[in-house]
């Protein structure tokens, strides 16, 4: 079947495209991107049976987004999210490929769990799922997991996300060993002794709310350690959910020195809101690392602008409503982010932090490159993963309408303008009002 998306503003940094074009797809692959000029001449009206035409006038047409950091919760925590609901939410958010973190139950620390996830995703998933395996068995930080066998089974990266690899020697070995696979280790940077059971950013607000604080340094000392280990080992390091000014500075200087193979991601909540969102003990604003201060938010934006931060990922962490209702100290950390990611990130374009092209790089092209998947592009021959975005109408975020089981978001009720209205993934067209 042939699909043509006509007259949309196509943005594809992989080909340097940023303008009104027609996007032609055939048999599940991108066929061509036709610019105004080339389509003017000798235009044949072969508009007949077998071709679906979609008018995207006034809308953005982007490669389907690629999310490096998602918790699908299955197996083990199906009451929070399943592969079915999580991928449906991704599609709603314009995300056509996602990498799922291994902190399931059982942990994805062996190939049979990897195979289970891929099998489930193939039968129930609305988008492509690329599993991330655990670095250590049970994410306990004690013994390496079978990285190479898991890689063969389909894992594209390794991470003990949710917990850091505390033992520096273990992290060193993991980085050295992972070189045989040329895949990144995704590090959740947190010095657990320093964060000491904290539940929000440390500062006046944490003291006056009586909540235990986590200083930015709990993240930064581990970012510094992991950069040092990446220099030592030559392993590939990808730093997850960067949230502080100090981390941005460390990564910037590491990239400048050029001795470590390091990339980094941040999440929409770290450039959209501050610790103030905790307000009166709103557990929907409880996330790890915690929401930081105004100056951290500004530094994250600067890091995105100057290329220090390569990727915007969601760290989609759905939880059951009951878990977020009650004592703030007891509520689990995490934000359900798949369905607000693009809307929040597009604000960076409005603010001049990123161009359209820069945004697509951070949300599609670069994440694909980091985990080595052939996505995030509209080059001829690539998978027909596409999202059409309407930026012309303001809408209200309504968590109750999320396709994700996780309604836990501090952005409920926010007015956003960028809204995916059509996503093409796995040969299916998903369309919304």
């Amino acid at each position, binding site marked *: 079947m042939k699909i043509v998306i006509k007259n949309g503003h196509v943005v594809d940094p992989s080909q340097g495209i940023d303008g009104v074009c027609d996007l032609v797809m055939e048999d599940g692959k991108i066929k061509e991107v036709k610019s105004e000029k080339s389509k003017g001449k000798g235009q044949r009206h072969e508009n007949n049976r077998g071709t679906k035409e979609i008018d995207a006038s006034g809308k953005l047409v982007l490669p389907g987004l690629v999310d490096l950091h998602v918790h699908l919760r299955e197996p083990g925590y199906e009451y929070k999210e399943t592969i079915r609901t999580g991928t449906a939410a991704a599609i709603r958010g314009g995300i056509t490929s996602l990498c799922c973190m291994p902190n399931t139950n059982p942990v994805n620390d062996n190939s049979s769990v990897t195979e289970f996830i891929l099998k489930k995703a193939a039968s129930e998933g609305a988008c492509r799922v690329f599993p991330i395996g655990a670095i250590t068995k049970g994410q306990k930080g004690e013994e390496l997991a079978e990285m190479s066998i898991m890689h063969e089974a389909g894992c594209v990266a390794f991470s003990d996300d949710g917990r850091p690899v505390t033992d520096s020697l273990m992290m060193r070995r993991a980085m050295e060993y992972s070189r045989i696979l040329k895949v990144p280790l995704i590090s959740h940077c947190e010095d657990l002794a320093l964060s000491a059971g904290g539940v929000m950013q440390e500062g006046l607000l944490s003291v*006056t709310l009586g*909540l235990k604080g986590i200083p930015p340094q709990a993240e930064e000392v581990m970012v510094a350690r992991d950069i040092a280990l990446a220099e030592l080992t030559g392993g590939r390091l990808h730093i997850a959910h960067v949230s502080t000014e100090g981390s941005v500075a460390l990564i910037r200087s590491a990239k400048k020195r050029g001795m470590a193979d390091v990339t980094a991601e941040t999440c929409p909540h770290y450039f959209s809101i501050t610790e103030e969102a905790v307000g009166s003990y709103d557990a929907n604003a409880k996330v790890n690392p915690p929401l930081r201060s105004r100056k951290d938010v500004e530094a994250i934006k600067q890091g995105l602008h100057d290329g220090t931060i390569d990727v915007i990922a969601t760290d989609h962490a759905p939880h059951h409503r009951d878990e977020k209702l009650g004592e703030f100290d007891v509520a689990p950390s995490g934000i359900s982010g798949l369905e607000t990611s693009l809307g929040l990130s597009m604000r960076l374009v409005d603010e001049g932090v990123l161009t359209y092209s820069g945004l697509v790089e951070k949300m599609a092209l670069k994440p694909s490159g980091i985990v080595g998947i052939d996505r995030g592009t509209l080059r001829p021959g690539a998978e027909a993963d596409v999202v059409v975005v309407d930026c012309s109408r303001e809408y209200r975020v309504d968590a109750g309408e999320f396709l994700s089981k996780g309604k836990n978001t501090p952005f409920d009720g926010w007015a956003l303008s960028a809204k995916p209205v059509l996503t093409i993934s796995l040969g299916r067209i998903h369309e919304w009002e």
Partner: protein
Amino acid sequence: MGLKSKDLVGIKALDAADIEQILDTAAGFKDVLGRDIKKVPALRGKTTVNLFYEPSTRTRTSFELAAKRLSTDVINFSVSTSSVVKGESLRDTALTIQALGADFIVVRHPCSGVAHFLANNLDASVVNAGDGTNEHPTQALLDLFTIREKKGVIRGLEVAIVGDILHSRVAKSNIYALKKMGAGVRLIGPPTLVPDVLKDLDVEIYSDMEKGLKGADIVMMLRIQVERQGKGFFPTTVEYFRNWGLTPERLARAKESALVMHPGPMNRGVEISSDVADGMRSVILDQVTNGLAVRMAVLYLLAGVKG
């Protein structure tokens, strides 16, 4: 006039007029408590539930007696802290108690924000009897009542609060209340327990107790949790007392008329010497007595809000 909220969750949400009103009302009840017959029928037919997730003797007893003096029925509901993590959820417990017809829920809980949560989720009036390291508003109100009773005014006084400010809900509520009422506040203790960021609340911070006490009108001591020793907050209770224990010599740095306060229970020889605790300037037992009148005033005024 009257309070604006159906709940007393914290001092943060009150203004100076609210505080003054509570203190004035408490003065009336203190007269009642001095009479031969100490009970008034003001809230007859109402029900007070003491919902305590932390062990407490003095605060629970004080609330119980205050509620009884106002002729409400009182039920004590103690929940072991283990159920914070397992078993019935906080919300379910609270809704159950409300369904029993409670008009007032007096709550103490080890987690900050719980009083706030209950206030938002229940129709009953919620009174915070201490939530985590957040607030303990009735303790601050009874401290202010005691200060006003002894000194006549609060505005312009210099109040030194000594000890574990970081973990003390009593200190927090007192800081907010004293600042709202125009007193000067100094916080004294080791930097591990007195976060610098509190300077943003327009208070002075001292680690040197001698300096901090100089010219103070009120010296408010806090209980030191002995468990904090060995966790890196301070080496030993012996060293703590050496640096921040209130002795007669140290007290001499404060004004001659300075009062000594403590919310109890005291650790004699850890934060306060017996000479001072039992000395002429100690008003520690007055605080306990006044607590009753203040809690009566709070319940009475909150009942007025609900009509």
